[in-house]
C-alpha cells in the first residue's frame, strides 16, 4: 500500500468521524451544562472513560478479533475511534463561547422573513444565519477531532488498519536515518495544516460579544436523558469494560508466571520506571509552559473558563500559537522533527539522552496542557480564588489555615490533576518514545507494543495490566502525599 492510498483512507475516515462526532459532542456538552452535583460528576466520569482509557489496552483487546474480516474490522475501528474522540469534541464545545449568531437571533431572523419570499431567498437567509451561528461554533471542535483521529497510531497499528501514521512509522523504522521518512511527511503535514489554520483563524476571531449570552440550559429529562445515559454506558462498555474483560481472562495465571520470572519482572519494572520518570519530566515542562502561556498579564478579564481570544494579550498570541503548533501536528510528526533536529545538528551530543524525548513529549502535549488549564481557569484565576488568597493572608492563623486549604482546592489541585494526566499521556506515548528513547531506557508501553502484534497470552495481559496501572497508582500516591503536605501546612 502506498502512502497516497493510506493518506486518502485516513482523510476520508477522519472527516467522516469528525462530522459524526460534532452532534454527539453538542448533545453531551449540553448534558454537561444541564446537570449538577453528583449527577454531573457521574456523567463526566463516564464521558471521559473512552478518552482516558489507554488505547494500547483497547487495541490489544480488539486486535485479533475481526482481523480476518477487513470491512467489519474497519467499522469496529471507526466506532472505537469515534467513541474515543467524542469527549474531546465535548470539551471544546463546552469551552467555546456562544457563537455570534445565537439560536434566538436565528429565530428572530426567521420571523423577519416575509411570507411571500421565494424559497431560494429563505434558504440563503437560513444558511447565512447558520454559517455565522452553529456552523461557525462547530469549526474548532470538528477540526480538533479530525486532527486527533488523523494522528492516531496505536489503535490502527494494533488492529491492522490502513492509516498514514502506520505507513510512516513503518517507513521510519525501516529507514537508515530519519531524513528519509521526513521526506514523505509533506502531504500529511499539508492535510493537517489545511484543517488547523482555518480552525485557528476562527478561534482567534472568536471574542465574546458584550451582548452575547450563553444559550439557555434545558434540564436533562426524558428522551434526551435516556439517549445521553445510554450512549455513555455503551461507550464506556465498549472502550473500557470489554477490553478489561477480554484481557482479564487468565490474567491471574499470567501474574503468577510474571512473578515467578524475577528477571522479566525486574526488566518490566525498570521500563515502567524509566517511562514514568521521562513522562513526569515532560509533563512538568508542559504544565510549566502552559501555565506561563496562560498567566494573566496583567489585567485578566477572566470569566467562566470560555476560550476567548480577547482573554489574553494579543501581542503574545502569536508566540502562544507558534509554541502550540508542533503539538497540534501529533506525536509522530513532532517525534520525527525532533529526531532529525538532534541527529543532524550540533545537538547530536545530547542525542542519546532523555532530553530529545522529553522535549518531543512536552511539545506534543502542550496544546492538551493549555486546554486543561483553560478548563479550570475560571476556578484557578477567578474571584473565588482571589478571595481564598485574601483569607490566606489573614492576620489570624486559623483563618489563614483555611485559606491554604481553599487554595489547594481552587488552585493547586487542578494544576496537580493536569500534571498527572499529562504525565500519564506522556508515559503512554509510543511513537516519539520508540524513535527517541535513549539506549536502555525504552518505555514499558513500547516494549509491550512490540509483543502485542503477535498474540494475546495471559502473561502479556498481566504485563499490560501492570504497565498501565502502576503509573496510575504512583500518581495517586503522589497526589495523596501532596494533599497531606498541604494539610500539615494548614495545621
Amino acid at each position: 500500500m502506498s502512502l497516497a492510498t493510506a493518506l486518502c483512507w485516513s482523510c476520508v475516515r477522519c472527516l467522516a468521524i469528525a462530522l459524526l462526532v460534532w452532534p454527539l459532542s453538542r448533545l453531551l456538552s449540553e448534558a454537561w451544562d444541564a446537570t449538577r452535583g453528583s449527577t454531573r460528576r457521574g456523567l463526566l466520569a463516564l464521558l471521559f472513560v473512552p478518552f482516558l482509557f489507554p488505547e494500547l489496552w483497547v487495541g490489544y483487546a480488539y486486535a485479533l478479533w475481526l482481523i480476518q474480516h477487513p470491512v467489519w474490522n474497519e467499522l469496529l475501528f471507526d466506532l472505537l475511534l469515534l467513541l474515543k474522540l467524542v469527549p474531546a469534541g465535548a470539551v471544546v464545545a463546552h469551552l467555546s463561547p456562544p457563537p455570534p449568531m445565537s439560536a434566538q437571533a436565528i429565530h428572530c431572523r426567521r420571523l423577519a422573513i416575509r411570507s411571500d419570499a421565494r424559497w431560494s431567498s429563505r434558504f440563503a437567509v437560513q444558511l447565512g444565519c447558520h454559517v455565522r451561528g452553529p456552523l461557525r461554533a462547530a469549526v474548532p471542535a470538528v477540526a480538533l477531532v479530525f486532527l486527533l483521529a488523523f494522528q492516531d497510531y496505536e489503535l490502527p497499528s494494533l488492529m491492522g488498519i490502513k492509516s498514514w501514521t502506520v505507513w510512516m512509522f513503518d517507513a521510519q523504522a525501516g529507514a537508515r536515518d530519519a531524513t528519509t521518512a521526513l521526506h514523505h511527511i509533506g502531504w500529511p503535514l499539508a492535510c493537517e495544516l489545511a484543517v488547523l489554520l482555518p480552525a485557528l483563524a476562527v478561534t482567534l476571531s472568536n471574542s465574546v460579544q458584550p451582548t452575547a449570552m450563553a444559550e439557555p440550559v434545558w434540564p436533562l429529562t426524558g428522551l434526551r436523558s435516556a439517549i445521553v445515559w445510554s450512549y455513555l454506558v455503551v461507550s464506556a462498555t465498549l472502550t473500557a469494560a470489554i477490553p478489561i474483560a477480554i484481557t482479564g481472562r487468565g490474567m491471574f495465571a499470567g501474574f503468577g508466571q510474571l512473578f515467578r520470572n524475577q528477571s522479566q519482572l525486574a526488566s518490566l519494572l525498570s521500563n515502567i520506571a524509566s517511562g514514568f520518570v521521562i513522562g513526569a519530566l515532560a509533563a512538568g515542562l508542559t504544565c510549566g509552559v502552559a501555565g506561563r502561556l496562560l498567566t494573566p498579564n496583567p489585567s485578566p478579564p477572566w470569566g467562566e473558563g470560555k476560550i476567548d481570544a480577547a482573554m489574553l494579550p494579543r501581542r503574545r498570541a502569536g508566540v502562544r500559537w507558534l509554541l502550540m503548533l508542533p503539538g497540534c501536528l501529533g506525536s509522530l510528526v513532532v517525534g520525527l522533527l525532533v529526531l532529525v533536529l538532534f541527529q543532524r545538528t550540533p545537538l547530536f551530543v545530547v542525542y542519546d539522552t532523555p532530553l530529545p524525548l522529553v522535549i518531543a513529549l512536552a511539545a506534543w502535549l502542550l496544546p492538551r496542557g493549555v486546554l486543561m488549564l483553560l478548563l479550570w481557569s475560571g476556578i484557578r484565576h477567578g474571584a473565588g480564588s482571589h478571595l481564598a488568597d485574601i483569607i490566606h493572608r489573614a492576620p489570624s492563623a486559623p483563618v489563614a489555615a483555611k485559606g491554604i486549604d481553599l487554595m489547594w482546592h481552587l488552585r493547586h489541585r487542578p494544576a496537580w490533576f493536569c500534571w498527572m494526566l499529562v504525565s500519564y499521556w506522556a508515559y503512554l506515548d509510543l511513537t516519539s518514545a520508540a524513535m527517541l528513547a535513549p539506549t536502555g531506557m525504552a518505555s514499558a508501553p513500547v516494549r509491550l507494543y512490540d509483543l502485542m502484534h503477535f498474540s494475546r497470552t495471559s502473561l502479556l495481559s498481566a504485563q499490560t495490566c501492570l504497565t498501565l496501572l502502576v503509573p496510575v497508582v504512583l500518581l495517586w500516591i503522589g497526589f495523596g502525599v501532596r494533599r497531606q503536605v498541604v494539610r500539615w501546612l494548614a495545621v
Partner: protein
Amino acid sequence: MNDSDHTVSNLLWRLHDVTLRGVGRARLDGVSLNIASGTTAVIGYSGAGKTSLLKLLVRFERPDAGRVESSGVFESPRARIPPAPPLDVGEKPRVAGGNDARLPLFWVPQTDGLWPHLSVFEHLTTVLPPGVNANAAKELLTAFDLLALRDARPDRLSQGERSRLAVARALASHAKVLVMDEPLVHVDPARAGTYWNVVRDHCRTTATSLVIATHSPEVVLREAEHVVCLSGGCVAFAGDVPTLYDRPPSRELARFLGPINWFTPDEATWWLGVTSAGDVSCRPERLSVVRDDASPLVIRSSRFAGSVAEIELSDDRGAPPMTIFHRPAIDDLRPGDRVTLRVSDVD
C-alpha cells in the same frame, strides 16, 4: 473626593492617575481618587468602569499605569505579596474597628466568587474569625433566608441565592472593609430591603467600612455617605451624597441619583417665575404642581410611577413643551388641567 472633604486619617485608598487598559479602550483612564472609611457608593452607567475600579481596590487586578495606595487594608503580618505603597501621611490612617485579628478586607465580586466544593454553611464557617461562634453563621443564613439550603453547593443555587450567599459570606468574614460589586442585584426587590438592613446593621455594629458599586439611586441614597460617579472610565464626580443629590454640578451627574427637574435661568423665569443667575435644579419632592385655572401651563400628559409622576407641560405663551417630575400625594392630575409649579428651597 478631595483631601478637604475627608481628613487623611480616615482614608482607605488613594488612587493616583490610575489607568487600566481594556480591549479597544481603557477601562479606567487617569483616575485619581480618595476613598474614605464609611460607606462609599460607586455609580455609573454600564461600562463606566465600576467593576474595574473595585477590582483594583481588592487587588484582583493591577493598574497598567498609576498607583493605588492602600492604608492598612492589605498590610498584615502574614502578607505573602508585597503590600501596596503606604499613604504618604504622617498619621496612620484609621480603619474601622480596632481588632487586629479581623480580616482586613473582603469582596463580593460581580460573579459571586463562590467556592464550588463547599456547601452554603461551609462558605460562612470558612471565613468566620476565631472566637466567633458557628451560631453566627446560622444567624446569617437565617437572615438571608438560606438556612434551608445550608448543605447545598453553589451549583444547586439560583442566581438570587448565590447573590445572598456571597453577601452573607462577606459579613461572616467580619472584615474591616467590605467591597461589594452590585450586591443583591439578582434578589427580588420585595426582599432586597430586608437584606440591606442586615448589611447596614452589621456595618454599624462592627464599625465596618463598605464600598459598593450599584446602579440603584435608592441604594446610594439609603446606604452611602460618599459617592463616586464614573463615566467612560473617568471620575465625573466624587463627594458626599447630599451634595450630589441636592446641589449637583450638572444635569448629567444629577441623573445618577434619579429624576431631577433642571431649568436654565430663562426656563426658571418662564416656568417657575423665579429669577436666578445660574441653572435651577430641584428633585421631584421639592416641586409642587398645583391646579390653577388662570395659569398658562397646561398638562399634555401625565404618567404616575408609584413614587414619582412624570408630566409633560405646554405653555399657552408658546414655549416649547417641558417634562417635569414631582411626587404627588394622589395621582389626580389629568391632561388639560392648568397648573402652576412651585419650588421649595431653591438653591
